[in-house]
């Protein structure tokens, strides 16, 4: 995939582990970005921590497998998991095909809104992705 084809939305925030965060009052939806899922490749297995579990920012909240590689899903925020997306648990490939919509991962009750200020906006994340892709060339 070319950089120009990489979908980066303006209505969500981003972290440097390629997660998007869509805050909604005291909670937020979290998912992998288009670039994030592209780096991982065809997702074969996805495991998410149970609902109700509290995660600190930087904690592992699940695992993802592609091409015999098991990667960690690192929570971009501190909070409690309110909901796991049943669609991706059943069909992890939805994260590949619809990363910003049907392929969201978890809904979290935010412990604090303070962490939201640390995220990248669309423009900043676009530069970050470009830097990453240039490095891989």
């Amino acid at each position: 995939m070319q950089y120009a084809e990489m979908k980066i939305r303006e209505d969500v925030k981003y972290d440097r582990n390629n997660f998007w965060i869509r805050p909604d009052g005291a909670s937020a939806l979290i998912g992998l970005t288009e670039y994030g899922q592209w780096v991982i490749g065809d997702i074969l297995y996805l495991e998410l921590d149970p609902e109700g579990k509290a995660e600190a920012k930087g904690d592992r909240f699940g695992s993802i497998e592609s091409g015999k590689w098991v990667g960690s899903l690192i929570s971009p925020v501190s909070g409690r998991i309110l909901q796991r997306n049943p669609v991706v648990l059943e069909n992890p490939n939805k994260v590949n095909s619809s990363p910003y919509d049907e392929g969201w991962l978890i809904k979290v009750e935010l412990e604090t809104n303070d962490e939201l200020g640390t995220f990248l906006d669309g423009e900043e994340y676009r530069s970050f992705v470009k830097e990453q892709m240039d490095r891989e060339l």
Partner: protein
Amino acid sequence: MKNWRLIDSKVLSAAENMALDRVLLDSRSRGLVPDTLLFLEFTPCALVGYHQSVELEVEDGYCREHGIEINRRISGGGAIYMDEGTMGWALFADKNTSGIPRDLDEMYASICNSVVIGLSKLGVEAKFRPKNDIEVNGRKISGTGGTEHASSFLFHGSLLIDFNVDTMVRCLKLPIKKLDDKQVQSFRQRVTSLREILGYVPEMRSIKKALLEGFTEVFGITFVPGDMTDGEEEMLRKETRVFSSEEWIRGGRRVPQSSELKINDYKAPGGLIRVSVLLDRTRKRIKSTFITGDFFAYPERSILDLEACLRNSSCLEQDVAANVNRYFSENDIRIPGVDARDMSTAVCQAISVSRSMM
């Protein structure tokens, strides 16, 4: 030249070996130890991948009766059988280690190619088969997998030295149950071993020396023989208890999955195509296929490559057809009387037969 620690572990139980992976990855990621290469030796064991279900992948009763330990890796991939006729190698390193690509596909290729070079020192002409296997004339001799923790990664592989294929066939749930002896014999051709290629079993120390030379050549590494630290030894004792637990081996996996074996015969103009497929309908994936028949394929390995191409791919009819068509169009495959459409029809019919063989 970069210095890496080399740990040449003695024969350990499956639980100890699996725990060792976690311990060394953890201590590397905390910066307590240098980048490390580990050689492992095994007692008979069946090891499932991190997300797999023991129940779906391993013949539990057979393993119990024959003293074959069952355990779970922290890395991905499918179930494997390991014993005294195999060995393991594992790299634990920082993700920013110079010379090791960060891109996963490139990392697989460069590490596997260093093993290929190592094997060439023994007189074995192996090749890297993307994404992450090492083969000799289309037959697998080493499978690999990996995982990561914080800033470090583990990439490891098996090496078949004097491999007991019969035990593997009996202790894993492979797509060959209900097949006749001739077909099972054909399945055996999917893997090979140093003994089979060389006609003798090289000494373990020669094999390890050759592999080290391969890693040195590709990555410019100097290996310094070392031991685990006291902290690692202590952690290994603790983690072995965790890795011996039923919770780790059989419980706790929350990934919905299923497994069913389907077999179907399809009559093409060029001959009969028998497709045996292990299907995960929950995840809509082909887990593995085994394709035999009385047709003639050129080159001979083309069917093995097709099986590799279908592994873990979508089992939806249009996707199967697209994958088989792409495989035929991108490779120079000649099977008199069998074209891409015959092959995709044969696979799709096997997927759609209503009767499960398991």
